[in-house]
């Protein structure tokens, strides 16, 4: 039994459909729990005051914004190499979730930045990188929408995703070079000294788990939807001929 069996659209739908409500339920429970824990039961930071509570939204959404693109890169490669339709459709299904996460990271970042740096928007390397990532998501989704033939669209968006990834990394480096920035170093660091205090960290972990599960649930649901759209197209094409 190989993992590629789930690349069959029917098998994929049959396997994932019963899972989705459970995943969705658990992820919402984790999110509600984590956010309530973070919002009501954690102390304010001595320096940042209550704005530290934005942390529970900002960090998970920023993490997801990048990881969703990474997942799209992998599924695009799988499509180009192994020609499994589900893989290409999963990339398509993930992009809108990724762009929402990017927007959320940008907005919470801007709201957090206002009291901390005294400005809504700073051309800080990290924020700027997310803005560029947002543009990449936008172009990727627009290309999917513009091309009629689904396999052509899958091929071209996959090529764009791969080339885009290389340029996204280049942009990250370029932006760093261009402006050293106000942003604190990434909060998620294995180095204990830099790490956020445990009081803030545990509810954040719950929130991150919630975001990840929510993404998995949504991606499974949306991939199934894309598979059904393809099935409608295929059936209608055959009925016409």
């Amino acid at each position, binding site marked *: 039994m190989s993992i590629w069996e789930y690349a069959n659209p029917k098998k994929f739908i049959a396997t994932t459909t019963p899972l989705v409500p459970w995943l969705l339920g658990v992820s919402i429970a984790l999110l509600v729990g984590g956010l309530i824990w973070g919002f009501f039961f954690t102390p304010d930071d001595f320096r940042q005051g209550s704005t530290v509570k934005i942390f529970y939204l900002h960090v998970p959404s920023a993490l997801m914004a990048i990881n969703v693109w990474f997942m799209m890169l992998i599924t695009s490669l799988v499509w180009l190499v192994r020609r499994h339709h589900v893989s290409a459709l999963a990339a398509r299904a993930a992009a809108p979730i990724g762009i929402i996460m990017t927007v959320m990271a940008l907005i919470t970042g801007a709201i957090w930045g206002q009291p901390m740096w005294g400005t809504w928007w700073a051309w800080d390397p990290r924020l700027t990188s997310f803005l560029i990532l947002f543009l990449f998501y936008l172009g990727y989704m627009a290309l999917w929408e*513009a091309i009629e033939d689904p396999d052509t669209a899958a091929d071209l968006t996959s090529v764009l995703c791969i080339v885009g990834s290389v340029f996204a990394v280049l942009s990250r480096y370029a932006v760093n070079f261009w402006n050293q920035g106000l942003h604190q170093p990434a909060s998620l660091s294995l180095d204990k000294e830099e790490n956020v205090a445990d009081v803030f960290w545990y509810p954040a972990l719950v929130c991150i788990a919630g975001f990840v599960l929510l993404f998995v649930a949504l991606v499974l649901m949306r991939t199934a939807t894309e598979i059904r759209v393809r099935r409608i197209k295929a059936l209608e094409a055959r009925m016409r001929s």
Partner: protein
Amino acid sequence: MIALLRRDLALAVRAGGGFGLGLAFFLIVVVLVPFGVGPEAALLTLIAPGILWVAALLAALLSLDRIFALDFEDGSLPLLATSPLPLEGVALIKGIAHWITTGLPLTLAAPALGFLLNLAPSAYVWLFASLALGTPALSMIGTFGAALTVGLRRGGLLMSLLVLPLYVPTLIFGAEAVRRGADGLGAATPLLMLAGITLGSFALLPFAASAALRVNLK
């Protein structure tokens, strides 16, 4: 392959559009900026590197959708695809031809336009060097974007949306090189990065572009 390059250059010269339009656009953008930000010389000196680079980038963008669209419409593209030329070579030549018709004239004209924006005297050599090293990357990245959107009606707008984010690193290093040159700092690092992006683009993007062309010709 030389034949293709010669043909594309001949077409660009005879059809007008090629050399002239991009340059005229570059000139107009540069002339419009002082109307927008005011005539103050110090301010113009400050923003000149960025304006010149952004204007060059937009001028290069303007003619991208002609790279493959014309050959697609008149049927040359499938004929080229079935010819002995490798499609990767076709994409490479198209990128080079686009650079010769837009990037090269922009590079040569930019120093002259620098005067209009009161560019710092020390920056001219850096402006020229950064454009000479950076505009080939703009052409090659654009060729890839054009290959992605060649079969689409109204592909031009979509192509801008796809290509502009890819231009970010080139723009940053290009403008930064001029800015550092103007301030008398060492501009070697951004120039090296620009050269790296250009070399990398020319080495790898023809393969991505030809893959996209094959898919679009199917």
